[in-house]
């Protein structure tokens, strides 16, 4: 399953409607995008997903880290 957002073939089903199976939830193992198969087509179809919200590898590599990971404290220091 291709991820509508990052276009990687990393989408997997992780849950379905507990009552009647009327929908399925998917997640992308690459970019953590989550979608339901009953959503608007532009949300679940990678060819229709809005370009301004798509993610490519370059964007993922340069993405802001928030908050920054602090240096490890040296033993004995407060």
């Amino acid at each position, binding site marked *: 399953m291709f991820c509508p*957002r990052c276009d990687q073939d990393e989408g997997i089903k*992780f*849950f*379905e*409607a*507990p*009552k*009647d*199976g*009327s*929908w399925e*939830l998917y*997640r992308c193992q690459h*970019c*953590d*995008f*989550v*979608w*339901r198969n*009953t*959503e*608007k087509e532009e*949300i679940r179809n990678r060819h229709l997903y*809005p370009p301004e*919200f798509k*993610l490519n590898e370059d*964007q*993922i590599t340069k*993405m*802001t*880290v*928030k*908050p920054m*990971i*602090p*240096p*490890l*404290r040296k033993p004995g220091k407060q």
Partner: protein
Amino acid sequence: MPYKDLRDFLEKLESEGQLLRVQKEVLPEPDIGAAAYAAGQIPSGPAVLFEKIRGYDRKKVVMNVHGSWRNYALMLDLPMDTPLRQLFHELVKKSDRFPVSPKVVDRAPLKEAILTKNINISEVLPVFRVNDYDGGPYLSKAVVVSKDPEDSKNQNLGIYRLQVKDKDRLGIQTSPQHDIAVNLRKAEELNQPLPVAIAVGNDPAITLAAGMPLQYDEDEYEMAGALRGEPAEIIRAETVDLMVPAGAEVVLEGEIVPRKRTIEGPFGEYPGFYSPTMKQAEIKIKAITLRKDPIIFENLYIGKPWSEHDYLIGPMTSVTLYRQLKAMAPEVVSVNAMYCHGYGTIVSTKSRIAGYAKIIAAKLLATPHGLVYPKFIVIVDEDIDPFNLNEVMWALLTRFRPDRDLILIPNAPGSTLDPTGYPRGLVTRMILDATKPVPPDLPLEGLSLLIPPKEAPEWVELLNLMIGK
């Protein structure tokens, strides 16, 4: 107040016509987000309880619980149409009772079921995408409990956005200005996980207190007690050393994984823009405690103002800033920080000395909230009601002298959610001193303030009687 839990408050709202039940089946997307936005647009908008969510058996979602001044007034046991200015002063009065210690209980409906295996957040809560291009479903109104890893008495409650990424993983936004970010930094310096408990569906006072920008060492449970007028009830979590609200519908227990950042967002945020997609911290959920009855998932619509977010956060931010400023400057009269989470903040004050407004603005910037949020700061005199924008505009147009009363602070810290930040997180702060000059400052030329006719209030009463009010 006090309401013992969310259900208790929903009953009150329903009895006053401020809760609507949607009994037809709705789709998680787009129905719930769209209806919640709509409820926030209606003046005096009601809370909306969705009773049938497609695919879920016996789960409910409630939105817009705090989403109108009417709901606020009911929460404070005031007449439904109490004006905002009065709500503000009532909140100040209640919060002045701080601190009221919480009461520890050993039994609560929250413990009717305890899950430690096969954790699945989406099975317990009917999660849904709030705005179309959010990175996934979000818990947008849950109260996150954490502790300072080096001071076990310093517990924190906060509302941080939580992205559902998997059965047991949540992304969390911990911005550097948030108390939980201080907790996390210390844990990560020690390479330790940070235990957290996430309470969903709470007594409305718990949610209000969790959204207040208190000082780092101030306890939100003690503020919830002050707002309620009696202690908040708390109960020990099952798998982490944290105290959680006893009235919650469900509590997710787990830990923030140390030194790990994964893709989070975007998420439609309070400035009315999507946040950038960033690499943020991640929570692993290890246990869930919940009520056996159908779970009511309380969530928040957030987006272009005004939405429930603005109702929820605006007055509480104003009250907190007022109390913090008042402690430093007794001349402060009132604070309105209701625009974009306080990006726009208006303070009314008496002037102790010439130029005093600049000092008040500096004190505002020195509060915890002042670290990043207020960037459009207007200081007005005590005769101006900061909640009345007509009066604020009048003060700006007749008392503000741009050549002397405008201060810009470039390259100051700002919220990463502020779309004007360049780069994100760095903004220019602006202070507008719209107070009248006092000696030795030069007086405004020919100053003679026009006072409305002192007999006018009697005429207001009479004219209202004549039109049948």
